[in-house]
């Protein structure tokens, strides 16, 4: 074999054993030579390609659309590269990088071109995998509920995710990227401190830090940082994970608050217990003294003052015990919307003209397990507070009742869910509002914003106790000069047994009051107890009822706020008709002169102090009707 032939054989072998498909194409777009790899890949024999045009091999359309222009370009002397896919028998669609190189003669004339085709499927696959992974990571980072940011060692922000923008309350990523992290720290010099610490230990979790966001709100955040270094061990950038911990902080505070109230409650309850003992001793001796003194004497009157003071003190110890949930409550199943409607009606009857009360109460009835008189007190107190906060400037009180799913409520409450459904009552005013430090204390007993001497400061703490006793919860949110919202969650009760009627004959109870709303609450409270309640608010009617033996009630409950029927009228009727119907008087803790008079007149068998509970009323009725 000549050395030339040997040389050709070697180069043919090299060409045939190359992993790329190699072919030589002439100016007529005809294959002049193909290597073995080309033939093997296309499952063809050499002879079926060589001498054939590219149009014949790849189809005219492919040739015209893709290949021809590339070949023409190559014949101008350029190396042309492009990616294409071919359908390879048995392997299907595969990607290749095609390189056309001009083959020039010694004269410089290009007569042929060398086509090399590399299988790039694996390369493409790994490239795609990298892209996919990157995309996945980017998505994760973007949608991570934890804020992420990368900044350079000076604090200039390089990259942020959605969660971080959310914490900042800013939608403009570009704006944030141009800022420095230092600007967001409430404490000056904090970034420098972080930088120093990260230099020492690379990663660190920093305690609770306040970030000032784009809206100027201070957000408590938990921040941890990782510092990355370049090849010269200089800091390259810092990655921060930023977690908004305001909810956590809020729940923590609420728990603290609950614990504090529990402690104060236990303490106050103990004190109230001791005071009740002392009050019993005082009232006992006062009673004995009064029995010993001639009626209507000046001394006896002084003893009455002592008794009056005892009643007042008793009302306070009672409230403290209600707050600390150490008073027995008699609960019944009661429609919450009915109690709410009556209370709204009551409030509306005495509202200043610059205040509007709006209410939304669903038609669907829902029952709660409660003492209706206490429920009335809760609603009344919240509405009165709201109205007082709007007294000067006027405003709107919105009262809403909604029935909500217990599962949804779970996230709002700091205690376990006890019912499938909850009544959610909202009392929203547009009044003075409060600052956060005030708001955190309003449920504490004896905490009041009013002047010293006005009110005992027990109102909201008592309400807190009543609601807690019902296994509900009261929450508040407020903004200074904007207004306050109270949220009351009460579990809806389903199957509590109703109180059974105790008396055989329906006993008639006459209820005298100036306030029809309160009387309706009472009637709700006493419904199903077997009593017949009659209401009277004018004198004529009263005389008529009392004069007739058949209509005469078995007992009377007299609320001293009755405007039409005065105490003297009642005493007068009793004396004139010479009747001895048991009479229960309900008054405020501060007795007025006329109230003292009726107490001393002898017609009152029992005296209850507001706020009265259902239990007290029922006890009083049972004693009177015995």
């Amino acid at each position, binding site marked *: 074999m000549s050395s030339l032939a040997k040389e050709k054989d070697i180069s043919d072998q090299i060409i045939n054993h190359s992993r790329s498909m190699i072919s030589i194409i002439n100016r007529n777009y005809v294959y002049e030579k193909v290597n073995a790899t080309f033939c093997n890949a296309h499952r063809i024999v050499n002879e079926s390609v060589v001498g054939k045009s590219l149009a014949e091999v790849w189809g005219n359309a492919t040739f015209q659309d893709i290949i021809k222009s590339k070949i023409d370009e190559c014949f101008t002397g350029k190396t042309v590269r492009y990616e294409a896919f071919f359908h390879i028998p048995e392997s299907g669609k595969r990607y290749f990088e095609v390189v056309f190189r001009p083959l020039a003669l010694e004269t410089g004339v290009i007569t042929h071109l060398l086509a090399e085709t590399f299988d790039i499927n694996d390369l493409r696959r790994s490239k795609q995998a990298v892209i996919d992974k990157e995309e996945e990571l980017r998505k994760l980072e973007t949608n991570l509920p934890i804020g992420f940011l990368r900044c350079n060692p000076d604090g200039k922000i390089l990259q942020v995710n959605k969660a971080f923008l959310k914490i900042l309350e800013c939608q403009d990523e570009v704006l944030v990227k141009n800022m420095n992290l230092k600007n967001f720290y409430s404490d000056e010099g904090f970034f420098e401190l972080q930088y120093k610490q990260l230099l020492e230990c690379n990663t660190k979790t920093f305690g609770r830090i306040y970030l000032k966001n784009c809206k100027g709100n201070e957000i408590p955040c938990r921040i941890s940082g990782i510092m990355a270094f370049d090849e010269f061990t200089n800091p390259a950038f810092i990655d921060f994970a930023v977690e908004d911990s305001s909810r956590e902080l809020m729940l923590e505070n609420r728990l603290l608050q609950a614990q504090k109230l529990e402690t104060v409650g*236990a303490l106050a*309850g*103990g*004190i*109230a*217990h*001791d*005071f*009740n*003992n*002392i*009050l*019993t*001793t*005082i*009232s*006992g*001796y006062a*009673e*004995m003294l009064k*029995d010993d003194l001639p009626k209507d004497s000046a001394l006896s009157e002084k003893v009455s003052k002592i008794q009056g003071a*005892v009643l007042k003190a*008793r009302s306070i*110890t009672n409230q403290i*015990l209600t707050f*600390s*949930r*150490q*008073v*027995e409550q008699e609960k019944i199943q009661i429609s919450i919307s009915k109690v709410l409607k009556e209370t709204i009606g009551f409030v509306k009857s005495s509202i200043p003209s610059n205040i509007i009360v709006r209410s939304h109460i669903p038609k669907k009835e829902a029952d709660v397990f409660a003492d209706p008189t206490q429920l009335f007190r809760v609603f009344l107190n919240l509405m009165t507070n709201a109205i007082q906060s709007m007294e000067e400037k006027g405003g709107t009180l919105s009262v809403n009742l909604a029935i909500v799913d217990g599962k949804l409520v779970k996230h709002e409450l700091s205690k376990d869910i006890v019912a499938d459904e909850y009544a959610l009552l909202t009392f929203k005013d547009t009044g003075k509002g409060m600052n956060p430090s005030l708001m955190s204390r309003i449920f504490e007993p004896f905490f009041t914003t009013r002047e010293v001497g006005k009110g005992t400061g027990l109102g909201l703490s008592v309400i807190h106790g009543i609601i807690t*006793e019902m296994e509900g919860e009261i929450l508040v949110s407020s903004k200074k000069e904007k207004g306050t919202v109270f949220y009351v969650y009460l579990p809806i009760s389903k199957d509590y047994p109703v109180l059974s009627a105790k008396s055989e004959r329906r006993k008639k109870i006459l209820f005298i009051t100036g306030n029809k709303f309160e009387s309706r609450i009472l009637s709700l409270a006493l419904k199903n107890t077997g009593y017949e309640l009659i209401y009277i608010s004018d004198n004529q009617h009263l005389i008529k009822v009392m004069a007739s033996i058949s209509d005469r009630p078995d007992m009377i409950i007299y609320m001293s706020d009755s405007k039409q029927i005065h105490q003297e009228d009642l005493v007068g009727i009793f004396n004139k008709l010479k009747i001895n119907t048991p009479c229960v008087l309900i008054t405020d803790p501060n007795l007025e002169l006329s109230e003292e008079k009726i107490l001393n007149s002898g017609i009152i068998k029992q005296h209850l102090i507001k706020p009265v509970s259902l239990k007290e009323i029922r006890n009083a009725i049972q004693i009177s009707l015995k």
Partner: protein
Amino acid sequence: MPGILIVEDENELREMLKISLLRRNFTVLEAANGKEAIIHFKPSITDLVVTDIIMPEEDGLKVVMKLRELKPTLKIIAISGGGKAGPGNYLSLANALGADAIYSKPFSINDLIAKIEELLNIEQNT
């Protein structure tokens, strides 16, 4: 006259109850806590017990249970001022255990005496 046992850990209050009952000519026995009441209980001369609920040593509920056991015909009145031992329905519990009447402090002493007389079937002459 019927014998009445007062079980109350507050000295002044117990004293007041004693005086008010003595005025009505009752025979009065005293105990400063539940344990004392149970140990020194004299069934033959005790017709009625007025007991506090929350007390050191044995509490009032134990007293109600134990004394009823020792003398089934004994009349029992429970009194309580709430508090101290945390939320609890002590009075209704006392009721369930068999107290004949229950009172929340502060109560009217005349009401209590009227109740005592009623329970002991004494002609009331007020």
